Every structure is written in structure tokens, then in C-alpha cells.
């Protein structure tokens, strides 16, 4: 390490440190001789105090010398540099690009201040220390790096931009940002002869750098050259332990209850110590109405992640806000994760049994009723015979299940109204059905016209099970099948179908909403389950039976959840899959119907954003709705405007998360970074942590001033005593 001075000429001031010695030698008072009788007492007193007095004199002399020497050295602005850095320090002026890390991890609080505040101070100090002939520019490194101006001499504007900079909750790719800075330094031909320097004010978290990418290069007259890179470590080498919620997967869980959900929470820790009994809390609702629904404890290994599963049954259906949280730590951004869930509401279903039987296993509707009436089901079914359909008022139901009903035509018009106003109709077939007659009675309510009954194998015949058809193709991404993941799909694909009704090809040409969609098909390609939108509602056609007559699906594990799912889908209680929470700074789509517009967004801070404020959040109107790039993590609500006025639409509420990658606050090895940037010749880390890297410059003047001040007070104390 070499000691360097910014103002070496001022080292002449060190001569002042000899003043106490000079004063002592030149102005020392000669002892006056005095004949004194009681000299024995003086000798004894002097013997007692001599050692203490000599020490005091030495300390006084040292303190006075130290005061003067410290002031003289501090004015000369010393700094410690590695020999390599000192040797490679550019001798002439450089064009400088300052990169300010504004990523989520910079909100980490260290010593009462955020790392972003420290980084801004470091950047401001670096800006102030630039020579008058050195042009500079600023790159604010957030989700998308701000395109920098070419390096210039507008120091005031740069300082203003630096002061106005705010941290984000987004992920910042410092590799990209340093690349952008290098590009900015490449631009000007007038500055081609100058050195190039990039100052990066960051927290040194490892996730922000992609060291597998090419290092930054600046185009010069003689080709690309490595710029000098100085990393200003805002963390000052300190470890940044952090615990946070990395991800939450919320799925309906009927085992918990009718409106039960299971939350798979991924917890992460960046600390060097394992975390035991980390309290995890789930709150339901928002604002003052929020209530703690459950508390759990999780263990997270050191510098790793762990999963914790918690479940909760919501008392009511509808859009619901949920907040999973950990105790707040130094990085609060990832300690709470909001979610907006569509909790299924209660569905009123009418099951019309077209082939009732006193023997339950032979009853057409027994399996469906058992599935829908289970304790965990949000469906409240009512069972009637086919003959009773004519006298049943359908207006009190959300969904009607027509199961092997011979002649539903008497209720055709009422069924149509039910569907068009948003209700659902499930049509299950069977031996009571005449395909042609069914088409005549239900007309275009049928998703596809029925053709003939196909027998894949006669049930009970030898080898029938082997010849039976299976469901071969399923639209797994359809909400109706959303719960079938992994091995759970086997329960559906393993069912054997002996008989089913073939449908005719679609000849009808309507608008998009009228077109039917096959969401499951047999292995011969024949539709098994067809969905059709009719008005505001849906119709599902199952081309086989829902008892054991034509297949064995009813006794498969997939039957019960599928039926509940179909009921919810048809009732409109199971909309399209809710999009996962948006990451701060990323684009979020807001779907809007005809005639509806976004009037305002209400952020997690409770502030309403309209007009120009919406633009600040990246708001843009699109054909089918709008897109927005919200910056603040938390729960956002949408105020929509239509013909009737403005109102908050709870279905459009969405959650914004701080980027989970920012939870990883583990420190990047300084040697790795300097090596990637070109080694100690061109790169160094400044800050206390840089001491270990062998390449930092340490400003010592402030330490010297403190030392001088301490010596001054010590001198005063010695004189007073």
C-alpha cells in the first residue's frame, strides 16, 4: 500500500508539528535558585510525583505535536492506495460516467441509513472531486437503465439529477448499466483522447452482476479499451444479512374447506446463520379491515431458501387481498408479499337426474351430487328427477346439470336465459339421449351438435377394458383443469370410456364468443368436453355419461375435483387464471371491457394517481385495456370509469412485488469483480470492504481530523489536571 496525497505541497505544514519542541527548547524558563530550609519535604514530594509528572509532560508534548501534525496531514488529503492502483491511476483528465445502483437491495438500512442514501453521497462526493476539465455523466441503474447524456460539464444539472434519484424495488442489472455507461463514454470524438473512468456506487450484492458476460469496453481511436472502473461500496464491506419471502404460490385446497387455499411460501436467507422459528404471518383484507388469519414458524438454512406451506379457508368468496409477511428487517421490501385471490363464492346448482335409480351406484346423478355436496365444495346442489324439471324455477340457480335428461326442451328457453345472463349449463349424456332430438330441443345451446353414439368396447366383454377409449388430449391450461398438476393428471387420463357420443363438425360461423372450444378429447380425437360461451354464461358438453354406465371416470380420483371445478367455472366463480403478482417496474396489463376506462390508480401508499401522475407509472391505454409499470411494491387498486361513473373495481386489483432477486443480498467477492473488470490495474473497490481486495483508496483526512480533535481535547484535559 502506498500513501498518496492529493495536495502534497501542503505537507510543508508538517513543520508546524515541531513547534512544541521549538517552543520547549527556546522558551524554557530557567530554574531560579532559592535557598530553602525544608528541602527534605520537596525531595520527598518530588519523588512521589516525578514519574507521573514526567509521563504527563511526555503526553502533553505528544498531544500538541499530534494536533499540529494531524491538521497538516489532513489538509494534504492523504489516501492509501495499492501499488497497482497507484501505478495505473490515470495521469491526465478522464471522461467519467457515474453509475448509481437504484435496485431494490439498495433500500437495505445499515446504520440508520439506506445503502441508496450512502451511494448517493458517495456519488456526489466523487462528482465533487472531479477536475474542472473532466466531463461527466450519470446512469441511474433501475429496472431499465436511464439512457445517459454524453459526458459534459453541466455539474449543476448532474448534481440535481443525482439529488432527485430515488431507489426502486426493481432488479437492476449492473452489468448492463456499466455497459451503458461504457457506451456513453464511447460517444464523443472530442473526448477520444481522454482517459475513461466509470464510477459505480452500489452495494456489491452478487445478484446484480453477470460475470459470465463480456466486461465493459469503451470504443477508442485505437479500438476497444478497458475503462478504469471504481466501485464505490455503499455497504463498506459489511455483510448484509436478510430474510425475505421470495415467492408465494396460492392454490385452492378443498381439503381445507369450501374456500380453502394452500399457500406455498418460499423463504430465503442471505445471512451466514440459519434462521430458526422465523414467524410468518398471513393477513386477510386490506387497510383497517385487515385481520391476522394465521401465524406459523419457519426454519431457513444459512444462505439458502426453504419452503413453508400454510393453508387458510376464507369465510367469503370473491376478490380477496392477502398479505404474507415476516418481521421487518433491514431490507423491508421483501418482508411482506401481497396477493389478490379470487376466492370461489358459493354456487347454487340444480342437478337434474335423467335416470334415477334406487341403487345409488346405478343412479345417474349420485356421483355428481356426492362430488358437489362434499364438505369442501363451494357448491350447494339440489337434486331433482327429469320429470320435475318442467316445474322447477331455474332463476334461483347459478348452474344447471342436465344429466342424461331425455327431453330438456320444455325448459329450453329458460335455460338459454339462465346461460345468457351469466349462468352455466352442464350437459352430460347417456342412454336416455337421442342425439338428433337433443339437437332439436336445445338448438344452439349445445356447444356442438350431437351425431351418433360410439361404443369403443362393450362393458364387461372380454378385453373391453383394453379397448376402452381414454382422454387423450386435455387443455391443461384451461381454468377447468388448473388444479390437475403432475401425477394428479393421471386420475383423468387413466379413466376408461366405453361409450360416448360423437359430435358433428362445427358448421356454424358466429362471432368469436359463440365458437365452441374442445377442452378435452378422446384418444381417437372425438371431443370429450366442449366449452361454449353463450351470452355472459357458459355451456359444457360432456359427451359421455357421469355415472358408471358408459365409463369408470366417476370412481376415479379426478372426478370429484373436476366436477367442482366445472360447477365453479360455469357459475363464473372460476374466472381465467389470476395473473401472478407483477414485479415492480415490469409491465402489468389491466383488462377492461367495452366502454370502461382506467380513471385512476390507487397505490400502496393510498395516493390516487390520475392524468400525468399515471404517466409517471408507465400507464398506456391499449385496445383491450391498459398497461402500467408500477414502481411501488404493494397492493394497487384500479378506479374505472364507465357510463355510470367511477368506482373501484376489486376484480382489477393487483399486487406488485419487489423483485425477488433483490432479496439475495449476499456479497460478491471483490476479487471476482475486479478480475472481471480487468484486474487491479484498471479496477478497484473503494470502501472499508476494499481493504481485503488489495486495490482500494482509503480517504484518511477525516480520520486524521478526528485524531487531531481527540489530541486537542486530551491536551486540554492534561493541562487542566
Amino acid at each position, binding site marked *: 500500500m502506498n500513501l498518496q496525497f492529493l495536495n502534497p505541497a501542503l505537507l510543508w505544514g508538517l513543520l508546524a508539528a515541531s513547534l512544541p519542541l521549538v517552543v520547549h527548547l527556546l522558551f524554557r524558563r530557567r530554574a*531560579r535558585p532559592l535557598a*530553602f*530550609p525544608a528541602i527534605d519535604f*520537596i525531595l520527598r514530594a*518530588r519523588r512521589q*510525583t516525578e514519574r507521573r509528572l514526567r509521563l504527563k509532560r511526555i503526553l502533553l508534548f505528544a498531544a500538541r505535536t499530534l494536533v499540529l501534525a494531524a491538521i497538516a496531514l489532513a489538509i494534504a488529503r492523504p489516501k492509501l492506495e495499492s501499488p497497482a492502483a497507484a501505478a495505473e491511476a490515470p495521469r491526465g483528465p478522464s471522461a467519467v460516467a457515474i453509475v448509481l445502483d437504484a435496485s431494490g437491495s439498495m433500500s437495505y438500512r445499515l446504520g440508520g441509513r439506506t445503502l441508496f442514501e450512502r451511494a448517493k453521497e458517495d456519488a456526489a462526493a466523487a462528482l465533487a472531486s472531479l477536475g474542472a476539465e473532466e466531463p461527466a455523466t450519470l446512469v441511474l441503474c433501475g429496472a431499465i437503465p436511464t439512457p445517459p447524456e454524453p459526458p459534459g460539464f453541466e455539474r449543476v444539472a448532474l448534481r440535481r439529477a443525482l439529488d432527485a434519484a430515488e431507489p426502486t424495488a426493481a432488479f437492476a442489472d449492473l452489468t448492463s448499466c456499466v455497459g451503458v455507461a461504457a457506451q456513453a463514454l464511447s460517444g464523443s470524438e472530442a473526448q477520444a483522447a481522454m482517459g475513461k473512468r466509470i464510477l459505480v456506487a452500489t452495494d456489491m450484492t452478487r445478484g446484480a452482476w453477470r460475470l459470465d458476460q463480456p466486461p465493459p469496453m469503451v470504443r477508442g481511436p485505437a479500438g476497444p479499451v478497458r475503462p478504469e472502473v471504481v466501485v464505490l461500496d455503499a455497504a463498506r464491506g459489511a455483510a448484509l444479512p436478510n430474510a425475505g419471502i421470495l415467492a408465494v404460490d396460492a392454490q385452492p385446497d378443498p381439503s381445507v374447506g369450501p374456500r380453502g387455499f394452500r399457500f406455498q411460501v418460499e423463504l430465503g436467507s442471505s445471512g451466514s446463520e440459519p434462521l430458526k422459528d422465523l414467524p410468518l404471518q398471513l393477513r386477510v383484507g386490506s387497510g383497517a379491515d385487515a385481520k391476522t388469519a394465521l401465524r406459523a414458524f419457519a426454519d431457513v438454512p444459512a444462505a439458502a431458501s426453504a419452503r413453508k406451506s400454510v393453508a387458510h379457508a376464507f369465510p367469503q368468496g370473491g376478490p380477496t387481498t392477502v398479505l404474507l409477511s415476516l418481521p421487518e428487517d433491514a431490507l423491508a421490501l421483501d418482508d411482506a408479499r401481497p396477493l389478490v385471490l379470487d376466492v370461489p363464492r358459493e354456487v347454487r346448482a340444480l342437478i337434474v337426474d335423467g335416470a334415477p335409480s334406487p341403487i345409488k351406484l346405478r343412479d345417474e346423478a349420485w356421483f355428481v351430487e356426492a362430488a358437489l355436496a362434499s364438505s369442501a365444495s363451494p357448491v350447494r346442489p339440489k337434486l331433482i328427477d327429469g320429470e320435475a324439471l318442467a316445474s322447477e324455477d331455474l332463476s334461483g340457480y347459478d348452474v344447471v346439470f342436465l344429466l342424461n335428461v331425455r327431453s330438456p326442451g320444455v325448459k329450453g328457453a329458460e335455460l338459454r336465459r339462465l346461460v345468457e345472463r351469466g349462468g352455466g349449463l352442464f350437459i352430460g349424456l347417456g342412454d336416455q339421449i337421442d342425439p338428433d332430438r337433443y339437437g332439436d330441443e336445445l338448438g344452439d345451446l349445445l356447444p356442438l351438435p350431437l351425431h351418433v353414439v360410439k361404443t369403443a368396447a362393450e362393458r364387461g366383454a372380454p378385453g373391453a377394458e383394453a379397448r376402452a377409449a381414454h382422454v387423450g388430449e386435455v387443455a391443461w391450461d384451461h381454468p377447468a383443469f388448473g388444479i390437475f398438476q403432475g401425477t394428479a393428471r393421471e386420475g383423468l387420463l387413466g379413466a376408461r370410456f366405453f361409450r360416448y357420443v360423437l359430435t358433428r363438425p362445427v358448421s356454424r360461423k358466429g362471432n368469436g364468443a359463440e365458437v365452441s372450444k374442445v377442452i378435452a378429447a378422446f384418444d381417437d380425437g372425438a371431443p370429450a368436453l366442449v366449452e361454449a360461451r353463450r351470452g355472459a354464461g357458459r355451456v359444457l358438453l360432456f359427451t359421455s355419461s357421469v355415472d358408471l354406465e358408459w365409463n369408470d371416470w366417476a370412481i376415479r380420483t379426478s372426478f370429484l375435483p373436476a366436477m367442482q371445478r366445472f360447477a365453479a367455472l360455469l357459475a363464473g366463480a372460476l374466472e381465467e387464471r389470476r395473473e401472478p403478482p407483477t414485479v415492480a417496474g415490469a409491465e402489468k396489463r389491466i383488462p377492461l371491457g367495452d366502454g370502461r376506462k382506467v380513471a385512476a390508480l390507487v397505490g400502496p401508499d393510498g395516493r390516487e394517481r390520475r392524468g400525468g401522475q399515471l404517466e409517471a407509472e408507465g400507464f398506456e391505454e391499449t385496445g383491450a385495456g391498459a398497461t402500467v409499470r408500477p414502481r411501488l411494491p404493494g397492493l394497487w387498486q384500479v378506479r374505472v370509469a364507465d357510463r355510470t361513473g367511477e368506482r373501484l373495481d376489486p376484480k382489477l386489483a393487483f399486487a406488485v412485488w419487489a423483485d425477488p432477486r433483490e432479496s439475495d443480498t449476499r456479497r460478491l467477492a471483490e476479487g471476482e469483480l475486479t478480475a472481471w473488470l480487468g484486474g487491479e490495474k484498471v479496477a478497484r473497490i473503494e470502501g472499508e470492504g476494499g481493504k481485503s481486495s488489495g486495490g482500494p483508496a482509503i480517504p484518511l483526512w477525516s480520520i486524521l481530523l478526528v485524531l487531531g480533535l481527540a489530541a486537542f481535547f486530551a491536551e486540554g484535559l492534561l493541562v487542566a489536571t
Partner: protein
Amino acid sequence: MNGKPLLDPAVLAKLGGLKLRVRAITEGVLTGLHRSPHHGQSVEFAEHREYAPGDELRHLDWKAYGKFDRYYIKRYEQETNLRAHLVVDASGSMGFRGSEDRLTKLEYASALAASMAWLLVRQQDAAGLLIANDKVLRTIPPRAAASHVSNLVEALEQSTPAGETRLGAALDWLVENSRRRAVVAVFSDLLDADPDVMKRIAQLAKRKHEVTLFHVLDPAELEFPYDDPTLFTSMEDGRSVEATGRDVRRGYLEELNRWLAEVRRAAAEADVDYALCRTDAPLDAVLLPFIARRARHAA
């Protein structure tokens, strides 16, 4: 300022000789004089008293026996049998004075001793003188004649401070040469090379002598008013020490006070009257209490 300006040491210091000082002092304290309470051998007959067993036979008036056939004892007026030895320390340290307008300790002690001698002789008590440093320099046996005082004053005037303090020599001389009970007044700063000097004084008291110790010290010795770097040199030997007054003051005063307490304690244990005499204190403040104590003892 004292009501009797002639007793102020600052005024006395301006007086040329010891005789003048003695006169000034004694005039100031004459009001405290008393008649001798002793009845003994003298020249002026006072009365007869009938003999009683225990009276000395040498006082029998044989003539009266011849006339009256009865035994009478003769009594005399204005007689005394008090003998006082004034021991003055004339060692080098007694030549110290902390300020030019003060008396040296020897001058102060001499003024005290001479005044005391004048007062004693005036009331027919006998006063003698012993001047010593590390040896006995001069002795004058006690006499009650008025002319004797001049000899004492002269001897004191001629004494100069020199040599080491060793009061032991003077005290030994007294033990050997004063067999009769006497009053012994010692004037010294007690800065003695012999640490057992107080034991020697106590031995004197054990021999039935009434010993009074006049401990003469200069205010500068008691207060140590020095701040600056000073080369302190001994007044009795070649020792010297350089010290900054304010640095050693606290330690010096602690040592001094410890020593003074020890001297007081030793004096009290030996039944020796002790008086600390600051050389800036009026002399009557020292003499009057002494005379009063003498009156009490005699009664």
C-alpha cells in the same frame, strides 16, 4: 494590623538591633507581668512564722529562739528560685526568610528569647542562654541580675545562622549541667538531621524540667508559595533539587503537615508545651500565652 505596632515583626524587622527590638517587645507586653509567686532565699526579710515539722532547719531564726524560746522560721519577700534556660537554634536553616520585609527565623527566635529573658530577669527569675547548631556554640548560665540581660542580648546579636541543626548536642549539655529543676525554652525550626530530636526533648521533660518548644517557621515554609521552576538548595548542606513549585506543592504540604502533626503528638506525649511560631505573627501572641502558662504552673 496589630494594635501594638511595635510587636509586629514587619516593624521589628526595621529596627536596627536586638536591644531595640527587645525594648519594643517588652514594653508591649509589660502589662502581662506578675510578681514572683516563689518565697525562698532572698535578701529582704518579710515575716516570721512559727516552725512546723518539715520546715528546713536552716531557715530557723536562732536569735528569735534566744529571745522568745520558741522556734520561728524566717520568710523573705521578692525572692525567686526559677532558673530558665533559653536554647536558641542557630543552624543554617534558621537564617531563612521568605520575604525581605520579614525577620529571619533566627532573628525572630532571638527577639523572642531576649524578650523572654528581660521579662524573667525583671521579676527576679534567673535566665541563661544556650546557642547551638550541631554543637553548643555559646552558653551563659542563668542569673537574675538586670545587667545579665545585656549579656544575653549581646550573645544573641552576635550569633549567625550556620551549620547543621543538631539540637541533641545542646540538650545533652543541659542534661549534664542543669541538675536543678528549671524552665527550658527551645527556639528552633526542628529541621534536625537527627530524627530522634523529639525524644531528646522528651528526656529533658522527664527530668522534671518545664520544657516549652517554640517551633519557629517562616510562612513560606508553611504555605510553599512557589509556582515557577526553581532550584531549591539546602541551607545546611550541599543538596539541591530542581522542581516546578506548582507541581510539587501538594506533595510538599502533605509531607509538612504530616511532620507537624508528628511533632505535636510527640510534644503532647512528653508533656512539652508546644507553640508554632510563624515569623509573620506578632510576638506578644507568643509571649503572653507563655507567661500565662508559667503563672499557672507556679500556682
